[in-house]
């Protein structure tokens, strides 16, 4: 499709709609959260119009540091596992015969057709003490006692990996699909065995897909509050849980907002660092 000429009515109208959307549904709520984080908690209203840094000061409580690091740890492990599982998975799809590739991609996308919340409940049913998995293991005689699967860190990580794996597979697939197989032949012709082939050609050429996938997994993993709630028995807190609890349970909007702002800043810093590194690399190349 050719881009509409500058100044055409269609182009202006489209841009206006997009800007309006961003303004109303992204910028405005974010601004409200940012403002709320700087106000005081009210008694009969959620916030009172009095400036205060109190909410941010409270964040320095070691308890919250703990939540913060815990979130990063869980999101990090999740990202690592998604990468380990997603990489060969995406490779198999990208190298599958053209006819069955759409089918395999469909299988990756199918889970999106039901709510992630419902799928997490399904995991509860599988993992609980008298659930499907334990039932199966008992029936086979692999165990005599039901295993404590639910309400463990492993269950939370399993839930996060399960929910976020497609976000890793899809960008990896896109990168691998684009990979020119003739480059692999050229590398073999030049003497590259399997290991060298992967390390020197496949890995660097799929790195952009890996970075995109890691971001699409890591950042959401920090906020998926219902997974620790349901699978971790609320024993394990993510930043997302903290925020949710402040808004819905503790009714402390300024503090919930402050946590949100910190999470937002953290993500923004993460993205900025990435952009910076990329630009540095591009500059270094251009300078050569």
């Amino acid at each position: 499709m050719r881009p509409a000429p500058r100044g055409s009515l269609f182009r202006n109208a489209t841009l206006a709609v997009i800007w309006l959307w961003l303004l109303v549904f992204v910028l405005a709520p974010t601004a409200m959260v940012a403002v709320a984080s700087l106000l005081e908690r009210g008694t009969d209203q959620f916030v009172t119009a009095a400036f205060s840094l109190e909410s941010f000061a409270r964040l320095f409580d070691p308890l919250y540091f703990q939540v913060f690091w815990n979130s990063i740890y869980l999101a990090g492990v999740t990202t690592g596992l998604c990468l380990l599982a997603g990489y060969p998975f995406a490779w198999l799809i990208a190298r599958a015969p053209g006819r069955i590739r759409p089918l395999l991609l469909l299988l990756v996308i199918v889970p999106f057709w039901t709510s992630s919340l419902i799928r997490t409940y399904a995991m509860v049913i599988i993992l609980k003490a008298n659930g499907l998995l334990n039932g199966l293991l008992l029936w086979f005689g692999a165990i005599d006692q039901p295993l404590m699967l639910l309400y463990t860190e492993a269950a939370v990580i399993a839930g996060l990996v399960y929910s976020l794996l497609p976000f890793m597979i899809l960008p990896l697939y896109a990168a691998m699909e684009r990979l020119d197989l003739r480059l692999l032949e050229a590398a073999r012709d030049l003497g590259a065995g399997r290991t060298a082939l992967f390390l020197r050609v496949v890995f660097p050429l799929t790195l952009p897909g890996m970075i995109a996938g890691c971001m699409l997994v890591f950042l959401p993993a920090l906020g998926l509050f219902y997974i620790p709630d349901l699978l971790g028995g609320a024993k394990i807190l993510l930043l997302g849980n903290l925020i949710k609890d402040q808004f819905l349970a503790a009714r402390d909007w300024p503090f919930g907002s402050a946590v949100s702002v910190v999470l937002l800043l953290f993500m923004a810093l993460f993205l900025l660092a990435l952009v910076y590194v990329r630009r540095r690399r591009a500059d270094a190349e251009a300078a050569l």
Partner: protein
Amino acid sequence: MSDSILQIRGLGKAFGGDWVLEGIDLDIRRGEFLTLLGPSGCGKTTLLRLIAGLETVSAGSLHLQGRDLTPIPAERRPVNTVFQSYALFPHLTVFENVAFGPRLQGVKGAELRRRVADALETVKLGELAARRPGQLSGGQQQRVAIARALVNQPLMLLLDEPLSALDYKLRKQMQLELKQLQRRLGITFVFVTHDQEEALSMSDRVAVMNAGRIEQLDTPRRVYEDPASLFVARFVGEANLLPARVLEQRPDGLSLELEGKPFEAARPQRFEPGGRVHLLLRPEDLDVWSPEELRRQPEYQARALAATVEEVIYKGAEVDLLVRLESGVQVAATAFFDEEDPTLEYQRGERVFVTWPAGWEVLLPFEDAS
């Protein structure tokens, strides 16, 4: 044979039951420039890939310096390829692209830098070492691809239509450079092209391929002047084919009936009396005379074939003529401006006579090919 580096015997390749290459017998000589020439889809790339090890052999064998190549994977064959698409690594600089092979052999440090610099110098790309492939022109990329292969000091260099993406002028220049490079390094080149002019001008020997087979393996000169089959005759250069009938076979020649006249072919070739043959004549071998001119050439008068000029195409240094013989066969003739005939004035519809120097015709078995 001691001067043969690669021996190919009965080589065949099938893709899912379709034989795309069959019964290839070929001895590649050490240090020669061998060209595989043939139309699209005749199996040139497949043959190169079999030598490189990028495709598995379906039948026959390959022996490199007496060693069976079949069980050796591509990465351990002392043979390198310049791919038609170049296949340069986009994420690596020119230097790193060229260093790719030596690094895998464990070459490091100053030795690595020296070898890469030498290879880049060979293709005159020393100053572009820090660029990425995306920042190079087609011709430069092609030279990087050559350097990347050469730096490994392969026994054989396989080049798959490396010049086909270049414009005419660059192509001519690169042809010369490649040929000089090959002479200087003394490496065996196996070069693929479907451009007959390129094949003839660069090679020591040409293998003309057709539908998965080698039709003729010979020097460029013999392939052009003495084609083994109608296919080769037509693929390598322009060919006029005149049907004739064999009257008598003698030890020193052949009596034919050509265009309703008796014709004595000088070359002793074996054909059955009563059978049909094709006379092959290249356009530049033919002379076209006006009736007055012919009267001054008594030695040609008996053999001259009458014709009518149908088309006159002026080409600067030469004039191409299309004439129709009395039998209805159309013949192309090229006449050059020279001191003998500085004007070359021909009119469409003009009556002319066609002759050629005695013995320049090539006799081929008759094939009904249109």
